């Protein structure tokens, strides 16, 4: 076969296989992310069917995938959302990061990895997958629940903290010595501050830059601008992902709504490419040896998120049942853990990428199941609390139970 022919055939086969797997995942109520990773592992070097031709496409496509993932995430939030959450929920956000990030650091140190790998593991274990979680909450009809605002604000704060964390990590990975590391972290944070203020204060100006009635023009302008900003951010070690995220926040109002609809399908395509690429560049023969440590880390990760949810729920005045549900909802890790691992890559430790792959495989499969498993337990706790209330205030004062 000619190069073009094999490129198209292999690329087509991979994407088609992803589609089939996505359909399967949907049937069982699973997230497709772990399946995309498995596909990547199967097609990569040392895998079942190594791919030859489309490697370049996957390399570039995965970069575009990160940019689009973060652009869409930024579009979900308005600047007001972020500021309001930061004001009211900052303590919960800090508890969440420390409680879930520190086990990752401890894990890296126990494995004998260096400080950069430890910092990377902090992010890998701390950040929940907002994509998986919002889908699980919607599917289970839980958006109206009283613990849901707490869950959502934890996700917002995690995403926002990534805007600080990723530039620091990128700068440290790029730096060669201690002095240059400090300098590049400072430059990265200063740039971040400037861009953040621009995004918050002058979002309307940026939105008016891309406004257009034609979908085609709007799509080209927005994706072009996103890649420009991401590239610029990468050049000063702020990380392309954060640049795209901030642009997403800056775009507001009707433009944001319109862009979400347009970029969504493109994001789905390139995000799939991104997950596959991470699998491709991970050596599957390393997986079995890291499965046990990754499994232990996953168990700890479930426990710490349950605790986080309990604390956040109690702070919001939610009952014990809701606190369990909040923690269970927060368990899945996904896209951010992979983004962090992709950023650090094999530069730190050969076992790093396979460990993160195994961890995300476990967390993205088990995570969405935890709320379903925890549900009867949460209900029992809530019933018991209700009985106690009834005893306390007397049955005549409680709400009548109407038939449904």
């Amino acid at each position, binding site marked *: 076969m000619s190069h073009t022919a094999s490129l198209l055939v292999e690329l087509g086969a991979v994407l088609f296989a992803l589609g089939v797997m996505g359909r399967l995942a949907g049937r069982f109520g699973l997230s497709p992310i772990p399946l995309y990773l498995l596909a990547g592992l199967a097609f990569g070097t040392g895998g079942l069917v190594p791919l030859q031709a489309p490697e370049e496409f996957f390399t570039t496509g995965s970069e575009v995938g990160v940019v689009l993932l973060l652009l869409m995430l930024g579009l979900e939030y308005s600047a007001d959302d972020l500021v309001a959450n930061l004001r009211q929920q900052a303590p919960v956000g800090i508890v969440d990061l420390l409680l879930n990030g520190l086990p990752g650091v401890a894990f890296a140190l126990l494995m004998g990895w260096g400080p950069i790998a430890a910092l990377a593991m902090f992010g890998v274990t701390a950040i929940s997958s907002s994509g998986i979680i919002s889908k699980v909450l919607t599917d289970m009809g*839980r958006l109206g629940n*009283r613990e849901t605002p707490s869950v959502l604000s934890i*996700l917002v704060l995690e995403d926002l903290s990534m805007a600080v964390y990723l530039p620091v990590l990128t700068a440290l990975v790029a730096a060669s010595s201690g002095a240059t590391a400090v300098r590049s972290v400072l430059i990265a944070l200063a740039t971040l501050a400037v861009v953040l203020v621009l995004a918050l204060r002058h979002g309307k100006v940026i939105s008016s830059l891309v406004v257009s009635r034609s979908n085609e023009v709007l799509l080209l302008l927005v994706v072009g601008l996103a890649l420009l900003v991401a590239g610029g951010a990468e050049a000063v070690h702020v990380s392309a992902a954060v640049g795209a995220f901030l642009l997403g926040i800056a775009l507001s109002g009707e433009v944001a709504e319109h862009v979400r609809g347009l970029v969504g399908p493109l994001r789905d395509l390139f995000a799939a490419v991104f997950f596959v690429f991470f699998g491709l560049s991970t050596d599957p023969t390393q997986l079995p040896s890291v499965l046990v440590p990754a499994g232990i880390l996953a168990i700890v990760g479930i426990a710490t998120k349950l605790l986080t949810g309990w604390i956040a729920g109690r702070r919001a005045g939610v009952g014990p049942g809701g606190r369990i549900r909040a923690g269970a909802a927060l368990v899945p890790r996904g896209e951010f853990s992979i983004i962090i691992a992709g950023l650090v890559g094999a530069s730190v430790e050969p076992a790093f990428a396979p460990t993160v792959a195994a961890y995300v495989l476990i967390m993205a499969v088990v995570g969405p199941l935890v709320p379903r498993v925890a549900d009867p337990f949460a209900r029992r706790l809530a019933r018991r609390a209700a009985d106690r209330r009834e005893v306390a205030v007397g049955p005549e004062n409680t709400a009548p139970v109407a038939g449904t």
Partner: protein
Amino acid sequence: MRIEETRLPGIGARYDFATEKGRRVGVISQRDGARHVFLYDPRDPDACQATIVLSAEESQTLAELLGAPRIVERVVRSNDDEDALPGESSGAGRV
């Protein structure tokens, strides 16, 4: 009546209130126009007992049905009058 408003970052806003008989009802308005209507569980005040998702058009229809019951009643009655033949059942019970 006191309506509570809660912002749901990334989704929209939630509004809920307690009915006179003690049930809590709520609506989430998503930015894309979809609405979730839900009923809280009296045994677990933090959870929803039932949720339905309505498209922008469906929620508009529901709002019209809820907001204009008198008009609907009148329409129904006048339809009944038209269907019935003069002197038959529709007039039978009237004074």
